[in-house]
């Protein structure tokens, strides 16, 4: 492959760098599915929200994430998985399993 900027990249390099890091493996059949692409896109915003929730601050001029992002998602998860958004739920493998099966 050759970009219009003159950069030549081999298929092996794509597999070793992009697919290995973002797709999970460098196998022949590895692809980036829609969820992985979405995850790639939202990784920065999740890190920003996590930093703010942890009491940290964002560097100057960094675009802040929408307010109340993670609490909203937590409330949704608790409501849908446990049926009560306000209940305290122990972080256990069973809860994770129920969340993934939902």
């Amino acid at each position: 492959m050759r970009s219009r900027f003159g950069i030549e990249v081999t298929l092996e390099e794509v597999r070793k760098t992009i697919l290995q890091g973002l797709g999970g493996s460098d196998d022949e059949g590895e692809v980036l599915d829609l969820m992985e692409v979405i995850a790639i896109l939202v990784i920065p915003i999740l890190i920003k929200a996590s930093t703010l929730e942890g009491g940290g601050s964002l560097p100057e001029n960094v675009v802040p994430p929408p307010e109340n992002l993670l609490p909203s998602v937590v409330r949704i998860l608790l409501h849908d998985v446990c049926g009560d958004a306000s209940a305290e739920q122990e972080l256990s493998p069973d809860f994770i399993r129920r969340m993934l099966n939902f």
Partner: protein
Amino acid sequence: MAQNDDLIQEMVQAASTTSHAGVEAKRSPYFDVLTFANGLTRDMELFDISNETRVSTSVDDVFERHIKSDHQVITTPAAAASPEDIYQLPTPREANTLNYIYSAPSIDVQAGNYRSKGTVLNSPNNCFPPPHLEFLNQIYPHKILHWSTALTVCLWASSLFGSFSAAFQIRQPLKVEEVEVTDDLVLANYTAAPTSPVCGELDYDQSLGGNVSELSCRLGISVYTSLGFFASFSLAGICFMGLGSLGNYVGNTKCYLPLLGAFFSLVLSFGFTTEQELQDRDGKVIESSFRMMVVLCRLLGCVVAYFHLCNFAAVVSPKTEFHEYKWGRWLGLAPLGREAHVKSAGAHKVNLLVRNAMVLMETQGVSTLFKTYFGHGLSAFAVSGTTEEQAGSFTWLFRKMRDQSILKEEGIWYSTRLLVSVLTQLSIALFIILLGTSSIQRVDEQFGIEKAQSHLSDALDNAIQTSVTTVKTTDVSAEISKAFASTLTSMGNAGLFGFDCSNTTDGVPYVVSELCGVSATGSFDCSMITTSKDSLYLLIQNPDLIELDTAAAYQLLDATEFNTTYMADIVQEQLEFVVNQSVDSMYTDKKYMVTTPLYVAVLVAMINALWLSVSYIPSITTTILELRSGVIPSLKSPDFEKYRVAPDTVSMLTGSLFWGCLVSSLLLGLVIGFVVFLFLWQGSEFTMIRALTVLLAAFILAIVKVLIIIFCCRSRYYRGLYRIKPAASNISLLALERAKYVPDCIF
């Protein structure tokens, strides 16, 4: 995934522990915001949030920023306990095995050579230049990017002005007659000679078939000339852009290349426009527009040379940060600021995506049957999942450009080609002003009704005299005599002359067959008739002679002492008088009848050119937004295959934008100016006023009709789509339907 116990266990561990300075600590045992945030981002600690504001490329952020040069092994907390899951990243060199091929970057206007895609800069705050640029570590001139766009735009404009000024130098291109190759750039030699040493003269008495060789020759010359123009412009463009932009690309480290670029830009801009070109063939100073074109070519060439010198200084003195100075920032010379804007715009887009999702979850659903947020989200998405945003208008773009959110939030920037096209369109507006004012000034100075009439009368008199002289010397004079004799005969027969032609003085009737001799061929010979009276009587008495024997009638007419030359002179005088009177009545009485339409035409053409130039960027912005939002299909476009196999069609854009702007502006200006002229000219003034009254009446009628429809028909006969007075509504509809045949429907 839910069946993978090890993975589940790792998830729990990642969410419930945190790490500070390599020391892990236990967090809350409950699923809350903090544990959720920790679980989401526990394995992404290497991602630096400040990447978003770093003046670097995404390639650098991904492959350099997070990969340490010591071949660091990165492990997750869970992976620490599971050595087999250790994820080992490649070294920088392994990860950055990108190979570059030479792509003539200094003329890469298609990619936009101001962008640093695929490369990074080496600023003091940017610590990880990619390995393939490591050798540039100390002298990499990132400041070269500051002037790259401006240099390319100025160079392109200079080359255009140079090419067109060279083309202007070619006199009377339509009269190209002989062709010879003189050098690489000038392939055709144009002369104003009316004769052709190469092609024979066209024989207008013959049909096209008789002129095949001459026409073929001229066709060949036309093709050759067109090829000459094509080659000239192409070679000039390559020379200008190729040589004049030497060293104007990101990775340049050779200090002599900008100097060469400056040298060539000066040589080419001044070489294409010599002092000799500032004069016409008669030694007179040529038009101001052409002079301005030459001046602009040279001026822009100097600006390009200055930018090259700036690049030279950047290469020689790489540690000087021009953007630290106020004037540098004022000129927008921040290093690679646009690259930061890309990442900032990406953050805004993802924010918008997430915010929309959050709003959607809080939107009222269509059904209360859904007991989960998941179902509610699906329901709400079906109802209000699509929203529209007004974007892309002129004011929208102006607002976005004013606060720079067009770069920082929308992530839209404009290529060098686009800026060049806008510049050429602005130059068209400038030249329309120059040409227009020059023309108006010339008309203002030379306008004179007497002078113009005198010139026109002399020209018409010459034409008429030539025609009458030709008439005299040809057989047509016989036709004049014939017509005169015929009229004379008719008048004689009608007794208007009071002649008694029944008998001659000796009592013999005036019969041609008896008085004139008859030759063996049957034609008459009336030369023996010498008296004017007998000749006149013969003509009157024998009206058929004119048709029977024109020559004999002419002999008799000549014998009557009828002076055909004098008659022709009389005809000429009368013709000249009538023509001059007609022409004088059509000539513009006042100067403003000419100058005002010219002013209007120039103003309209200039406004059109300016409007096109200022609307081009909003137009391309709208196109970008439509392409992003799917209004314009990309890969699913039915024409995608056509686009895919013809990437060269993009080269048509700049030329078509130039000529489209020029031609449309001139045509619009001429049309509007002609209409204004018709309103002012005494020959059409009243006709146009009558037409205007008709249009005005139709416009008033249209307004009245709309008022009647709104305040009568719609309000009294309808409630929405329901008729409250069916009969009246039917009658009014029929009346309106028939009224549509009235021309007021154009309004």
